[in-house]
């Protein structure tokens, strides 16, 4: 809970510390975990309901594991985190579409794309609510802000 209440500044300090510790122990071990299974409490054609856990953790630093979908463009400020590797590319193909349970991740700094089949853990501040990316028009309901990621 103490970790969860970190301000952005202390979080960044913690992150830079974390980076230097990567070699010693797994990164991001301490942030509250969220899994893709825990994002929604109910599914309906009329909309999804965010889980109590998501509501509680909104505004807090969290970590979540998944796969990075190929970015819209190399220099995009965000990427899409999916539960399983994307077998289709909605950014490239007009007949492909995203699954329901995706998480948009806005990076704190530039990081290179991971190899496919590589599970990653992303950590950042959980943000909830409709947001249209000003550059791409991509609409998301759930995001990580100021995020970093590492292979796991």
């Amino acid at each position, binding site marked *: 809970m103490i970790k969860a209440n970190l301000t952005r500044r202390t979080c960044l300090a913690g992150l830079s510390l974390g980076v230097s510790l990567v070699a010693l122990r797994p990164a991001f071990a301490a942030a509250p975990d969220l899994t893709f299974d825990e994002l*929604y409490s109910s*599914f*309906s*054609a*009329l*909309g*999804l*309901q*965010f889980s109590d856990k998501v509501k509680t953790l909104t505004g807090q630093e969290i970590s979540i594991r998944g*796969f990075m*979908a*190929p970015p819209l463009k190399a220099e995009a400020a965000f990427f899409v985190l999916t539960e*399983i*590797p*994307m*077998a*289709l*590319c909605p950014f*490239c*193909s*007009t*007949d*492909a*579409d*995203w*699954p*329901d349970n995706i998480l948009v991740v806005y990076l704190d700094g530039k990081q*290179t*794309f*991971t*190899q*496919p*089949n590589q599970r990653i853990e992303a950590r950042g501040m959980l943000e909830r*609510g*409709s947001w*249209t990316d000003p550059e791409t*028009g991509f*609409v998301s*309901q*759930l995001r990580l802000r100021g995020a970093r990621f590492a292979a796991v």
Partner: protein
Amino acid sequence: MRNLLTALAASTMLTGMAHAAEIYPLDRATILARSPFDFKVELDAVHGEADVAVLVNGKPYAEVFGKPAEFVAEEKDGEGKVLGSALILRDLALAEPGQYVVEVKAGDETKSVTWDVYTTPEVAKAKNIIFIVGDGLSVAHRTAARIMSKGMTEGKADGRLAMDDLDHMAFIGTSSTHSIATDSANTMSAYMTGHKSRVNALGVYADRTAPSQDDPKVETVAEALRRTTKKSIGIVTTAEVEDATPAAVVSHTRKRGDKADIVGMMYNVQPDVVLGGGSAYFLKSDVPGSKRKDDKDYIQLFTDAGYSLATTKAELTAASGTNTGKILGLFHTGNMDTWLDRHELKKGTVDKFPDQPDLVDMTTVALDQLSKNPDGFFLMVEGASVDKMSHPMDWDRAVVETIELDHVVAVAREFAAKNPDTLIVVTGDHTHGVSLIGTIDDEKPGDEMREKVGVYDDAGFPNYTDADKDGYPDKIDVTRRLAIFSSNFPDYYETWRPKLDGPFAPSIQDADGKYVANEAYKDVPGAVLRTGNLPKENDTAVHAVDDVVLQATGPGAEEFKGYMEQSDVYKVLADVFALGTAQK
């Protein structure tokens, strides 16, 4: 050799000249008399308006068409580069059947096309049409479905599929206007408009400008029915209702991915029954699960327009008993799950959407509702996941989807038996490069899975069982199962086994946009990496150019025969409904 080179040079020059100007509709277009369409001339250079001459059957075009076209001095591409001048005349309709020779001359650019404007008998042959599409339905799907569902003894099928007894058939050529290859947008659009088009395009000819919704339009079957009849219209699918195949009944866009706009197009036509998945594009952008970028609430708009709403199988049953006359059923935010996942494996997204109706349930409700109209109906039913499971080479799911589609054909035939003024058409929109080649027998010795593939005499017969006689195999992972392979594939791990943990995802994308084998299947016992034979940009197996087999029964079915272009199928539908004559 020299002669050949000369001939090649000449043909290259001819090709270059042919590109000087383009006229839409294209040469050899077949156009239903009185149906509205857009006429467009694209010139390769910039001309003065007075320098562009267009003759139709030798007369100035505005005389024949009844009005002048808009002249665009400079059409530009997305980057602002000038493409040339253009003429656009929207909502043109030709009442007089016959040949129309359209000749364009502008400077040294010339182009000539000939259209065949056809009309229909004045009296309809049938009151109802049920148009059933197995998306991607290929011969191998049918054969596999028959063997899996009915069994086979000593080389003879132990039963017949419902589609096996449709008495008329034709081979259908599915190629698109710019390629021998094709997709569900242009193929279904050809069925539903009578005009071939380009890959990804619906209800339009694909022009050269970037915007996706300014391309020259042609009339869809739903629009023709609204214009000429009082018939009801139904759309039933296991895909998103705004996906290409159902969208083709009502839509006009160069880009099938314009799904948010397609929902608006569907709303404008207001088919009486719309059942399927894809609610994400009906929800306002601030609702979790929405894929819209605006605050339009199409659930509310359809409800306000008098539709009963259903979001589960239970609600569909309730809605079918109401007297609103119109039903919107959206049972999933995306594509609905497959029969195998819904009924046996409980994988995919069945845990999230546990009460999805079957395609048979949806078809039955649609028929009940639409048949209340004394003027009759047009119902399009799509088994979408025959295709959606064939792309990732999940053959077990694709074949079971074909069995479900066949149950829909059985329901349609039962309806037609009581209502003989009904034409039933059963077809694919395109094919896949898929073949059934034998069996896979786990009991064969060794660990190498390829050695368990039985071919020729060694294949024998599979050992699926159907104790409850529902037509579906009691379990999919039997020890001697059908061996089905794709002629084309990305890199992937072949497992020779049904995918019991969820639909197959054979390959995934790397940082350079190339597809590589999905390592999630690497450790399946016996899995072997197959290096793909497709460009690495391809995520899954692709559509085949092979002909589709169309089958039909009922009044007008005799018009289906031999080889037909996909666009010619629409002419049969128009004939059967007498769409050349206003009937309201």
